């Protein structure tokens, strides 16, 4: 039952913001269901596949999907993610994380104003 509730929350969040929903799924699996980090992150990937596909189809029916831009960004991203994940353990130092946080915050402010 908790898994269904997590799915509902993640699906809402994912469709509203166009993101995968891992930001909802992973913390809830850790804190509410008591899973460890590794299976939580891995399992969220499987769930996100279903959620994102459903969201894309729902938006597609309403004519709001742009296939060219999605492919232009999405296909190179899969390659980048392989490299990024491989480096994860070694490279995600404190300075790098803070730099990334600053980048996200800058884009956030840009979109807010």
């Amino acid at each position, binding site marked *: 039952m908790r898994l269904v509730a997590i799915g509902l929350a993640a699906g809402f969040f*994912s469709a509203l913001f166009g993101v995968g929903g891992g*930001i909802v799924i992973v913390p809830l699996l850790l804190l509410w269901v008591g899973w460890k980090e590794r299976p939580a992150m891995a399992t969220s990937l499987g*769930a996100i596949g279903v959620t994102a596909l459903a969201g894309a189809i729902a*938006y597609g029916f309403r004519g709001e999907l742009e296939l060219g*831009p999605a492919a232009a*960004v999405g296909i190179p991203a*899969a390659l980048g993610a*392989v490299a990024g994940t491989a480096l*994860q353990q070694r490279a*995600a130092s404190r300075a790098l994380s803070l730099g990334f946080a600053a980048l996200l915050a800058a884009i956030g402010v840009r979109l807010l104003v």
Partner: protein
Amino acid sequence: MWAFVLAGALGLAAGFLAGLFGVGGGILFVPTLTLVLGLSQIHAEASSLLAILPTVAVGALRQQHYGNIRWRSAGIIGLGSLGGVVVGVFLAESLSDELLRRLFGGLLLLVAAQVAWRARR
């Protein structure tokens, strides 16, 4: 044309950063699609969901290899999400594009805070 090349390069970078910092790609795809390719917020969010799929597929294959994915639970969460997706799409479409963009900006600030918080440890 050049905007697509730039978007591809940013997509590559977004995937790399997402993998490196353990966040989803969508958080970077949406601003790339709006700020670089000029999509409206709602079209960017819709297209981002499609753009996420290749990255998720590759990530899931790797995790499957390590035996970390609990597929039954993933299926239950995924099926449960369908109801949420319908409500989320409906709400996103009923909000103005500007409000949606601002909400997304707020979300980015929250994720930035989360990444910074994790870096403290």
